[in-house]
Structures are given as C-alpha cells and as structure tokens.
C-alpha cells in the first residue's frame, strides 16, 4: 500500500543566541500563524546560554502546545561540565518528547523514546537500528549525509520516522573553543555572550572576499542557506516523513508557508526557490549535500 499522508513540517531548535524576549516573541508568532506540525526548542549549542533562555521554555511550550503543535525538547550537542551533564539527566526524566544530540544521553533515556538528532553520528542502518532498539522513534540525519544513503537507511529501518534537514545554514562543526569570543579578543570563560550580536551567525569570508562560513559560538555553520526542493512524492519515495526547517531571523512563518505550499503542490520547486530568494536569506541558496556533492553548491535536483 502506498503511503500518501502529507509530508509534515518541523521547526528545528534555534541554534543562535537570541535574547529571551525575541525567542518568546518568535514562538508566539509560530504558534499563531505557522503551518508547522512539530517544534523543537531548547538550547543545543552552548550550555552557557541556558541561564538566559531557560525562563522562555515553559511559556513557549505552553503557547505552542495550545496551538496544537507537537513540542520536542532538543538537548545539548556537546555537554562539557558537571552542570550540563546533570541538566541532560534531568531533561531525560521530563514527561515530554525529547531529541538527543550526544551519546551521553543514551543511558539516561533507557526506557523512554527519543528523537536521534542531527549531531549524532548515525551514518548507517546498523547504528540507527541499534538506537531504535534503545528507544529512537524519529531521526534527523547529519546534514552531510546524502539523500541516497538516507533512503537506504529509511528502507532498512522502517520503524523510525525520518526527518530531513531542509532549510537553513548547515550545522557543520562543533569545537571546545568559542570563535565568537576569539574574534572579539575575549576568552570563552568570560565571553560576555558576544554571540548575541549575530542572530544568524557571524559571517566568515575567505582572503579573496568569498562568503564561506558562519561562526556561532562553539559552532561553525555554512554561509550558504541549504534548502531541499524535493517534492512530496520524491520525499515519500526516499522514506522521509518530515522536513526540518532551521530558525533564522527572516520571516520563518513565511518560509514555513512556502514549504507547505510546495509540499501541497500549490507551487513547484522553481516557485519555492523564487519565494525563498525574495526573502532576507542569511546566505545564497545551496543544496548539493543532498546528492553527495560539496555542500555549498547549488545544483539542479532531478524533478
């Protein structure tokens, strides 16, 4: 039997250091008007930001849940100290859906279900199958994993929902050093939270002036803005159930609406690209990770 249920849309966790009011305001608008099925929230990149954005989450969860959105708590990708490790253990005990982004959380999630996030190194069916046996019900593959590989894994581990990273600057690397602090001549321990100056990341160019990367605290992202212009039929054929759009400072509700229109067949891939290009994108569009090519490139995907 062919599955014809609509491809769902998810909003990924906000990777950037937005002030609390901005975050709350963002989730209120998403709850009000955005055609999104699932919303991931929580601090993923830097544990030092937690004291600032922690107060936001209860209200954001409340607003989104009342609007009928499925809320998933996304967790730290690189816990580094006792405090952060304790937070992960507490979060695993919450009575809400969670996404894990580090293997540290697997033991704490024993006996419960979880989403395997894009920061986990799941590159094949055996490792996804292994996590599935330990509670993984949903999986967002690493950004660099080609669609052909995702399709193979999805076919071999059908019990796990697959969610494709489909919009936003690509999360490329984590480090123990903070590049925002370094660029501002500060130390990580006394960083003054300067990553809040760049709501979409700090632009990094080559010596020739070519746009290249974006720094976000300890994280490095692409400069270019990835988008998966794959129609619902193609996604279903690849075993993908949901698309993940990563928050940026542009009109995310507009982005979600454009993707919904595209997935529903109201506009074609060209139309989606045109609508995105008109918006205030953080960088030029790219998509070549989907075909296993250099991620920064933009290539014509088979229709």
């Amino acid at each position: 039997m062919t599955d014809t249920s609509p491809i769902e849309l998810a909003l990924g966790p906000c990777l950037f250091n937005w002030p609390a009011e901005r975050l709350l305001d963002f989730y209120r608008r998403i709850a009000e008007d955005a055609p999104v099925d699932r919303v991931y929230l929580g601090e993923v990149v830097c544990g030092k930001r937690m004291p600032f954005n922690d107060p936001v989450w209860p209200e954001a969860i409340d607003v989104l849940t009342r609007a009928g959105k499925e809320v998933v708590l996304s967790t730290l990708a690189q816990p580094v100290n006792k405090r952060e490790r304790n937070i992960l253990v507490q979060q695993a005990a919450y009575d809400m859906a969670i996404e894990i982004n580090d293997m540290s959380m697997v033991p704490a999630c024993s006996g419960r279900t979880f989403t395997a996030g894009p920061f986990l190194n799941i590159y094949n069916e055996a490792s996804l199958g292994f996590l599935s046996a330990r509670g993984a019900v949903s999986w967002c593959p690493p950004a660099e994993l080609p669609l052909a590989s995702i399709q193979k894994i999805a076919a071999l581990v059908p019990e796990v929902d697959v969610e494709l990273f489909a919009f936003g600057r690509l999360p490329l690397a984590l480090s123990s050093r903070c590049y925002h602090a370094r660029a501002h001549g500060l130390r990580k321990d006394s960083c003054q939270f300067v990553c809040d100056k760049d709501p979409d990341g700090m632009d990094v160019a080559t010596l020739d002036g070519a746009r290249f990367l974006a720094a976000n605290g300890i994280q490095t992202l692409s400069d270019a803005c990835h988008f998966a212009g794959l129609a619902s039929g193609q996604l279903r054929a690849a075993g993908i159930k949901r698309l993940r759009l990563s928050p940026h400072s542009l009109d995310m509700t507009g982005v979600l609406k454009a993707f919904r229109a595209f997935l529903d067949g109201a506009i074609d891939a060209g139309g989606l690209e045109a609508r995105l290009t008109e918006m205030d994108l953080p960088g030029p569009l790219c998509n070549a990770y989907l075909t296993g090519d250099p991620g920064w490139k933009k290539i014509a995907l088979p229709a």
Partner: protein
Amino acid sequence: MTAASERRMELVCPAGTPATLRAAADAGADAIYCGFADETNARNFPGLNFSPEELSVSVAYAHERGAKVLVAINTFAQAGNTGLWKQAVDNAAACGADAIIAADIAVLDHAADKHPDVRLHLSVQAAANTPEAIGFYTETFGVRRVVLPRVFSVPEIAALNREIDVETEVFVFGGLCVMTEGRCSLSSYATGKSPNLTGVCSPPDHVDYAEDRAGRMKARLGGFTIDCFERGEPAGYPTLCKGRFSALGHTGYLFEDPVSLNAFELLEELAKAGVTALKIEGRQRGKAYIASVVSAFRKAVDGLSGGADASASIAALKALSEGGQQTTGSYRKTWR
C-alpha cells in the same frame, strides 16, 4: 613516588606504511596504530595504509620487537555497505591485531559480537566527551580504552579518570584538530568528502597550490582560498580550521593558527592524571618524522622514571611541525 608515576605510560605511534611501521617499532613504540587502504580508516589518503597481507607481516615484525598493533577502523560505515567495515574488523582480527580502534556503533557492535577476544578501543572520532558517553560505550561494547577528544585540560582529564573505569589515551604530539573530531563536516562542505563520510579531511584531489612570481603561495581547497603564504613564510596544510579568513573586518586565523600539538612538558601531569597511553599523530607522515618523534618521546617517557633528559630531542621536533609552531592545545586552560 606516586602510584601513577610508577606505572609507565604506553607510547602509541602512527604508521601509514609497512616501512613506517618498522621505523616506529625500531624507535621504541609500545604500540603502533595503522589502518587498511580504504574508506574504513580516517587517513584514507592515496599511497597510504595497509593491505591485509601487509598488515599480517607487519604485525609479526612489531610483535617480534615487543610492540602491539592497533588497527584503526574508525570511520562511519556507509549506508547499505557496512560489509566493508565488518570485513575490515574480521581481517584485522585474522592478522593478529592486538586491538581495533573504532567509532561507529555498527563497527563496535560487530567487533564486540564476533571478536570478543580482540580489545576494543574507542576512537577519538566517537567524540565521547563525558563519563556518561564513555560509560555507554564501555558497558555496551566492552570497550577497554577511550581515546579522549582533544577538548580537555589536564585537571579535567584527572577528574574524568576518577569517574570512569576504563583506560584513557591522549594525544601528545602532531597535527591538531581544532574542531571536535567526529563532529566536523567542514571538509565535505568545501569538497564533498569528509572524515565521517570518506575518511579524509581536506582531500588532496581538491587541494591546489599556486605560487606567483613574488613567491607568494596560495593554498586552496575546493576552490576556496584557505591561506596565503609570503615567500619563505612557514606553510601549513590547507585544512579549513587552520586557514586565514576574515570576519568583523579583521583578517587572521579565525579558528586556530597552523600549529601542531606538543605536550612534552605535560607528560608528568598526564601520568598523575591517570592516563594510560600517549598517542602521537601522523599516519600520513614519513619515516624521518616517525623515527625522530617516536625516539624523542620514547626518551621522554623513560625520562619520567629516571631515564635521561629528553628536552633536546623534543626541541629538535619543532622543525617537523606544521607552520613551525607548537602548542599545548586544550591541556592548558589558555584555550578558554
């Protein structure tokens, strides 16, 4: 004398070819790590690595000299093609390897299941950062040693060792990943190939050096300019994280200078922190590098238990380092 300094730390040395493996064994390595000539290991460069036949012969050579051989099968198995990785594990075991170094759950699971008698070491590519993550790997797969990500200071390593019940191995010399190993896809963003996907960072088939008449050399990766060196200025590999970029109107080494790790001065502290093994990076380097670095560190480790002073031999290694510069990396808190 403390218990920690009584126990001699093991010196783990790299080999990219049978000839460099012999050089490492002759120079006094306690253990030598190497990999097969395919995508199963994280130094998948042209002309490098071992066939199963070469590994067999090399294991015999190392064993005769009292050195162990650790086989790195430390990339992530390709979807739909995990057989290649499983075969590599089987081959390593058949060749008499003393341990397998792995990062991928698929590889660890196969090794633990099919070769329970072969020691398993957790590769740095697994980025096991916390006692919880390390506990997961040791309890699930019987991992006997963890190669620590290069993110910790020495006091943090000591604290970690108090919380875990497994051997730890730390890098002490050689090229340095600035990003957390196993969690970096900068290389595939520029070239389509990365450590996790294909076992290479900054693949040579995407590297291009161009020198102009004034002797300025531009190093590019996948068409992106990564650095530019004036005539006579020490150069480095065009690795993305060590390139020169511009941000906020300034140009410089945004992520890290092209430097290389040398933790010689910290060996005693590392011993006190409970570290079992010291690792030298450089499977892509030649016999000259291996012979000098291994013998200098052999002297340095022996020096901890009353051997001759190794400072002069260690100082001579500077000429072999990338960019001619060295750092103690994250081990000293200056990285914060």
